[in-house]
């Protein structure tokens, strides 16, 4: 059953999956009971000779209760789902925890453009590096992104992080994630963006501290590599 969803390697993935499974079990039970009742009725109440139907009009309070009480139960379960969902939503989409890594993500037919601020931690400076389709982040660190698009609406989707956010031209949308395990994870576009929509494929490369520092030194090979990585870890 746990193989229904992809593996989850993000800190808020568990919160999202928790709501998913809550819904799954609640609606699962209801579904089985309701379909079961329907199937039972179809078998049990097949037309038989000399057996008239029961005149159950459902207009009295007592009879309506058979429907209304389950409906009220559904209502309360729904509200419970909403409550659980609201808390997780706040965590994922409303909060923006302080970050140690900052990136800009741009959607552009049909590539993901990643801009790193470089050792100075600021965008729009000489040490910014822009890479297509490859996003390097350190494992276990909060990463904040600013997402936009230069043309049409795209959607930045990393299934194993349970991360999705539409990239809208004319807007900068902020979000965050924190990955729990190193590895390479695929980035897809989940909003139709033109004929090359199916080719928009990126890689999220999550590295442990050593490998990440090595990549940093490689990408910004200047002065003392240790100075560069030290100031990188102080990014806000």
């Amino acid at each position, binding site marked *: 059953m746990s193989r*229904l*969803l*992809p593996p989850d390697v993000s800190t808020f993935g568990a919160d*999202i999956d928790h*709501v*998913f499974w809550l819904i*799954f079990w609640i*609606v*699962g039970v209801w*579904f089985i009971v*309701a*379909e079961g009742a*329907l199937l039972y*009725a*179809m078998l049990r*109440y*097949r*037309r038989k000779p000399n057996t*008239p*139907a*029961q*005149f*159950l*009009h*459902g*207009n*009295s309070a007592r*009879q*309506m209760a058979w*429907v*209304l009480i*389950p409906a009220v139960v*559904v*209502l309360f379960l729904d*509200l419970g*789902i*909403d409550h659980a*969902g*609201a808390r997780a*939503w706040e965590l*994922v989409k409303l909060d923006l925890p302080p970050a140690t890594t900052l990136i800009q993500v741009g959607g552009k037919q049909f590539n993901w453009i990643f801009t790193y601020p470089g050792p100075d931690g600021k965008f729009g400076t000489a040490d910014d590096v822009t890479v297509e389709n490859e996003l390097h982040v350190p494992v276990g660190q909060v990463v904040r992104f600013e997402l936009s698009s230069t043309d*049409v*609406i795209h*959607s930045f989707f990393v*299934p*194993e992080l349970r991360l999705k*956010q*539409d990239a*809208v*031209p*004319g807007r900068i949308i902020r979000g965050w994630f924190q990955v729990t395990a190193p590895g390479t994870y*695929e980035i*897809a576009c*989940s909003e*139709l*963006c*033109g*004929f090359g*929509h199916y080719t928009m*494929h990126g890689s999220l490369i999550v590295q442990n501290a050593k490998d990440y520092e090595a990549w940093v030194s490689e990408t910004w090979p200047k002065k003392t590599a240790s100075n560069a990585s030290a100031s990188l870890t102080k990014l806000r």
Partner: protein
Amino acid sequence: MDTAIAHAHQPPASFLRRYVFSIDHKVIAKQYLTLSLAMALIGGFTAYLIRWQLAWPETDIPGWGPIGPDNYDALITMHGTVMIFFVAMPFLLGGFGNFLIPLMIGADDMAFPRLNMTSFWMLFTASSLIVASMFVPGGPAAAGWTSYAPLSDNPIYTGVTWGQNLWILAVALEFASFLMGGINFLVTALNLRAPGMTLWRMPLMVWMELTAAVVFLLSVGPLVAGALMLLMDRTLGTGFFRPDRGGDPLLWEHLFWFFGHPEVYVVALPGFGIMLEVLPVFSRKPVFGYRMMVWSTLAAGLLSFLVWAHHMFVSGMDPRLATPFSVTTILISVPFAVLVFAMIATVWGGSIQFTSAMWFALGGLATFMIGGVTGIFLGSATTDIFLHGTYFVVAHFHYTLFPVTFFGGFAGVYYWYPKMFGRMMNEVLGKIHFLFTFIFFNAIFIPLFITGLRGNPRRLYEMSNYDFLKPMQSLHVIATIATIGLLLGQLPFVANFVLSMFFGKKAQDNPWHANTLEWATSSPPPFGNFAEPPTVYRDPYEYSVPGASQDWIAQTAPEPFITTVAAD
């Protein structure tokens, strides 16, 4: 005499006035039915092409040839657009609504017969435009049936020029057509009911059609405005939805979905209405909780206006809006839960006759339940983060729209065909049709739920660029084979429909022993519907009333028979 029923005692003499430019609601209904079934061929064929490409990418599709990514995007756009606007709505509202409303309330026609005729020909024009758009330079619209801007707004992003403009015009005309139809439905049902036909004695089908009409009427306006804005952006250089000109792509999303969500209930409610007519007749029991169902329907209609942004949870709109819209969305599941439970309660304790119509009604209810529960995952913003834009959504909406449109619609055809055409359909072919439809429909979309749960994005020309999708290719193959099975499985229906017209057993007035007024006249009804205007004495679902001499009592049966609603 402003409610001009511009017909005389006799039907018109000329062929054109009788069958082409007819103002008789029964003829117009059949025109809508025919048009919708013809457009369904296009909708079904696009599905075949789409699914073949997904199962066996970049092979030549038998009966067609190769398709490229541009064709693919056009195909999915046409599939959605045609199915919703040019199949589901004409089938359920134009077809059944037009045929049944006057008959069920005891009227001799709609309040505005000439407006009715106009509305059909307007839809015909709109359908022609959408078909024509498939042949213009640049191809048809390719931005999805949702037509998000700027993809749909600026031709450079797709290369589509005329196609998108024609799409806008076709959809606008379709809106105008159903606006006219909706006004007709509402005024007819409110004003032309036969003596004794109180609102609370109207069959649920009529209530459903009316609610759909009101919901459509009140929700379509902002999208008409939006469509005009999109057209101006494309032709006059405005920038309503273009950030480079000061506009906002999310504006289009709001305007579209403000209509788009109520629209799916406009389609769903009449489908439910058909089930609610068929289930009691073939259970020989009243519908369970008639008034409760009416109030739930009205509540659902009202709530449908308050949920639209659940399509936009990750759109970039203010995230604080997500929780209120999650709440309203989840609340709308309550009236639908009432309807579903009440439908189950309707067959519970019955004496069920498994006619083809009944199979389709039951099958529609059973499959709709899957659509309903999967909606909860999407209605909660948190889980929607993961599921939005994946095949989970595709499977969800097919599990709601297909049951109401096709299971419901077919139930309606098998049930009312005798009344419409004066012949009985073949029950064996009907049951074969049901079996194929039910099995193959589920076989298409259960695999797609599975791929969606693994994160399979929508609207991809092929999956080969993503490693995480490759293991699921076999599921796509299964879905495609099932699609072919589903399409071929419609052949018994086509054969049945056509052959029964000429060789079917002649139908009596009331072959199903049903109570509602359409069965109190001949099959098919005469010109003017009723030889004498009927008088209504009772509720529509008095089946198996204790103490009665037979298990049905027509609405027109006067006292003394058994009185209604015994205390339980």
